């Protein structure tokens, strides 16, 4: 009966049992001993702070600086705050002061080791990086987190015992069969494999394009037939891709490939790569390479039924003019995505985004020597259709009475 009653006790009842009859918290450690430990921790932390400030500002008279004392006060309050937090969270059941002292001692010891290493390297004539002490600033935070993790584990064990473990119930260890163990291992391995694949296919494209992600992306995320195009894109964009996630490059590659044969049955590879695949249209102070998805989503559904580049270009320029106005006060250095989002550009910019829109649907396009859009009709380059209206605000363009 007792066991049954114990097992039905709520967590609140168990917490109440920890508290004494008059509500006071039972402290295990002696009060003065705790004060001593905390005092030592505060001193160690203050020493660490002073050491750090001296390292960074050796020529500054720290004791004269109010900023030094203010930050020192803030920092030394951390050990006390940690102690208060864990004491209250555990209702006095966890003695956190020794852990805090050990953490503070480790921080102090680390200071000594880090400084000794720098002195040793200096004596040996080995230069240290200017970021050497910047890296060191993370050490104290790491130790503080470690100490708190230890205290959190203790807290978790303490309350799991009271809340889950029914009194008097004997735990019988279960015997694991080989078959079950093998199956579980296989499931574990498969699970890890699945997670790794998900990580590669979902996580990797979200990373910024750099040397490593480009190599790994090519290995894991690009089909064999597209590897050459991937290399072309990576080489053409060069360091400009580093501003983008890998996904932007992959989108560009896949969407261009999707449109490869819509308008041209046999398009040679250089024309495809230079005038459909490439997101670079002309030289800009701040190139924008990630426009293809936005334009493809808008234009492709409207021309997906067509096979003639000229007819499709007519539709593209009309749709484009519906979305993008031509206004001379907008600078000509805007990239394709900027133009698309602002909805305005000048005449030069309009031809730039026009070429981009044509490329996004799979029409080989480029700017001619007058910076006007032209398209590849399968045999030669011809001028792309012009928009019906440039602007009603510009009387030069349309017949005006």
């Amino acid at each position, binding site marked *: 009966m007792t066991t049954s009653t114990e097992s039905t006790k709520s967590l609140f009842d168990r917490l109440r049992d920890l508290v004494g009859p008059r509500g006071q918290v039972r402290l295990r450690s002696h009060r003065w001993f705790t004060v001593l430990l905390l005092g030592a921790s505060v001193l160690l932390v203050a020493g660490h702070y002073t050491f750090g400030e001296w390292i*960074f*500002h050796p020529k*500054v008279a*720290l004791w004269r*600086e109010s*900023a*030094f004392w203010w930050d020192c006060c803030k920092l030394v309050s951390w050990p006390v705050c940690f102690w208060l937090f864990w004491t209250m969270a555990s209702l006095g059941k966890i003695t956190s002061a020794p852990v805090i002292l050990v953490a503070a001692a480790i921080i102090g010891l680390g200071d000594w080791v880090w400084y000794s290493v720098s002195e040793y390297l200096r004596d040996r004539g080995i230069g240290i*990086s*200017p*970021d050497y002490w*910047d890296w060191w*600033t993370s050490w104290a935070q790491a130790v503080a987190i470690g100490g708190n993790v230890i205290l959190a584990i203790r807290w978790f064990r303490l309350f799991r015992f009271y809340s889950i473990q029914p009194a008097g119930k004997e735990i019988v260890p279960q015997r694991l069969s080989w078959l079950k163990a093998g199956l579980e291992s296989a499931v574990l391995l498969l699970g890890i494999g699945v997670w790794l694949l998900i990580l590669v296919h979902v996580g990797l494209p979200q990373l*910024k394009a*750099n*040397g490593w992600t480009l190599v790994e992306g090519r290995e894991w995320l690009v089909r064999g037939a597209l590897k050459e195009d991937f290399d072309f894109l990576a080489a053409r964009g060069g*360091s400009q891709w*580093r*501003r983008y996630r890998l996904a932007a490059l992959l989108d560009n590659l896949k969407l261009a490939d999707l449109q490869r044969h819509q308008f041209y049955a046999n398009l040679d590879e250089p024309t495809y790569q230079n005038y459909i695949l490439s997101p670079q249209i002309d030289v800009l*102070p*701040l190139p924008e390479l990630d426009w293809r998805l936005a334009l493809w989503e808008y234009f492709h559904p409207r021309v997906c039924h067509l096979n003639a580049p000229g007819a499709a270009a007519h539709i593209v320029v*009309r749709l484009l*003019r*519906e*979305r993008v*106005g031509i*206004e001379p006060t*907008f*600078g000509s*250095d*805007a*990239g394709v*995505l*900027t133009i*698309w*989002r*602002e*909805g*305005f550009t000048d005449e030069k910019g309009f031809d730039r985004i026009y070429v981009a829109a044509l490329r996004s649907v799979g029409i080989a396009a480029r700017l001619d020597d007058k910076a006007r859009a032209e398209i590849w009709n399968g045999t030669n380059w011809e001028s792309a259709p012009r*928009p*019906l*209206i440039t*602007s*009603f*605000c510009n*009387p030069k363009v*349309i*017949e*005006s*009475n």
Partner: protein
Amino acid sequence: MKTASERSGLKETDFSFCFPGVFSRRVRYCIPLLLLVGIIAVMVWAKGSGPFKRIELSLKTADGGAVNCLVVLPKPVGKHPVVIYLQGVGGSLLGSGNELRQFAELGLAAVGLEYDQTNQSVFDGQFTALYQYLQQQSWAQSNATAWVGVSLGAQRTLTFAVRHPELQPQLLVRLGGGGVKELDEQFDVQSSQAKHSTLNTKYQTSNGSGQLTLPDAPKPFAAGKSQLTNWIHCSVLLVHGEQDEVFPVADVRRLAEWLRSQGVVVEAHILPGLSHGFGEDREVVMRAVAEYCAARLALPDYTDHLIGCQLNLADRERFNQAMQRAGQRRRELWQAVTAAREPERDTMMNVIGGLEDYDLAHISAAQLKKLVYNAWRARRKYPWCRDTPMKIFERFVANPRTYEEPLEDWSAAYGPTLSRVVKYCHTTSEASDAVWQWMRVRAMEHPTSEMEQPKILSLIRGDCKDFSVAFTGLARTEGLPVRPAWTFWPTIGNDHYWNEVWSVEERRWHAFDTSALNRSYDDAHWMTWVPKSVIQVPTGERGAWNAVADQRWESLTNSIGLFYPSGHVLVRVLDDGKLASGRRVGVQVWLGNGMGGKQADSIKFWEPEVFTIAAAITDQKGEARLVLGQSAEQPYRIFLDARGEPDWQWLAVRSNRTYTLTLETGNHKPFDIKATPPQLSWLKDEIHETR
């Protein structure tokens, strides 16, 4: 074999066994309710996240009738110019959605009306009711209105405008419209008064369309001119298809000419190959009309609803212009504004007002907020930022842009480190030096290696421009008001970048050659080592980011007068003997033939060439003002920037003197680039004296 319901002990009629057994009955009943709440929440969210706000309303007219209207407002909702759109014959309010959306996309409040298509008098009552409604709306700028009518809608609006001249809009746009009876009558009255009538009018009102045959312009209706101007006093835009089968294009041409002869501002556009309804190009036409309306009407005012906004009128105008340019990104920028409190909000609005087009299109609300809040954190914390004038603070601390570098989160990358670097600094000098030292040490550590991270540190290994950009970004992170500076050395034939820091102690800009690794903040004597012609610095306004590359010098500020012996130049431009405004005057320095070339044992040898280094636009008085550094070995070439062989003059500049030049547009003066320019050895001694 027991069924699922039997196993669970429930009756067959109780479908709750479908739910997992762990759910109690109460929880089970809650699930559909939760689903319903979820669906409603998603619908509300979807409606809220749409780009437009739709208002459907029914207005009562004076004669007791009713008219349905649809208002499409762009988000964010401010105080917008209003476009009243009237569809043609057979059109409906619901069918006008695309057109209304096109207007709203450009920041206009678009209003559609389900008007009476058979009776003009009923229409007048409906339109008056709409007019009165718009006068009372907080989102409508009642003094910036356009009426856009298509076909019958155009007929109706023109008739209404003639009948009610006191209610006319600022802009009347007629698409595929013809003449109207009221104008004919007016014309007849005038004609009889003038006894000079040649107007032959045929008008059919049965189906709302008609033909107006107007006399060949110009016609001498001087007697009726003032009367008609009283009737139509707004600008009129006529757009017509060349192949219009309802209203012949010749009628529209004659109407335009006739209106123009009566003093009305008219623009007429005949679109080649298009029919009455404009066919497939209808949306393009509507977009162009929307652009025309947006350009001619006032800007939307987004600051009107902001409580406690302290911005002055000029700053509000800047902000509204930036919001108008931002297009699709308006809502993102607005999100940042509404999420901020004063005084950060005013700063954010001023920052947005000066953002480059690239930044308007790419910066996120979170980035903006972080940028401005970090700037204000620095302003509250550091003395060198606290006493900086607000204009300088907003343009050179909170602004994310230096030149054409990518938008990077400088404060996240280097803020904590640099806070520590400047922790014990008390003056602008100390803080600038501390940041420069930090950058310098790292630049020396990695002089050539290529860094993987595409952030600021990758700039600290390039040329002087990269150093200047890097210092600007790093220093602004810690609240130092910094701007980059570009100069041209005429004797060396090279340019150079450095920085200017606003010194709160000196209350002026302080030149700091941050790209040189051996010149600290207080090392000022380098300024006069090499002769300089100009020092061009950004203004903090839009367009400055690539002004140096594009040689748009008038978009920059020339600060040479602050640091180097300089003279003032006043250039007057004459056009047919009269002072001409809006003319661009350029300044060039001439290099070659021994200047800084092989004869001077210079490292670089420049082929004979002229470089444009400054420019200014003449003001209303036809005057342009320039400040130029003391001439070194060659005079400046001051020229009129025009086609052909425009007028130009040599000018040798001495320190603290003012020169006046006159250039004439009609004066053609060839310039031989290979001719040797005058030598100015007399200035060398003065330069040495100033060191």
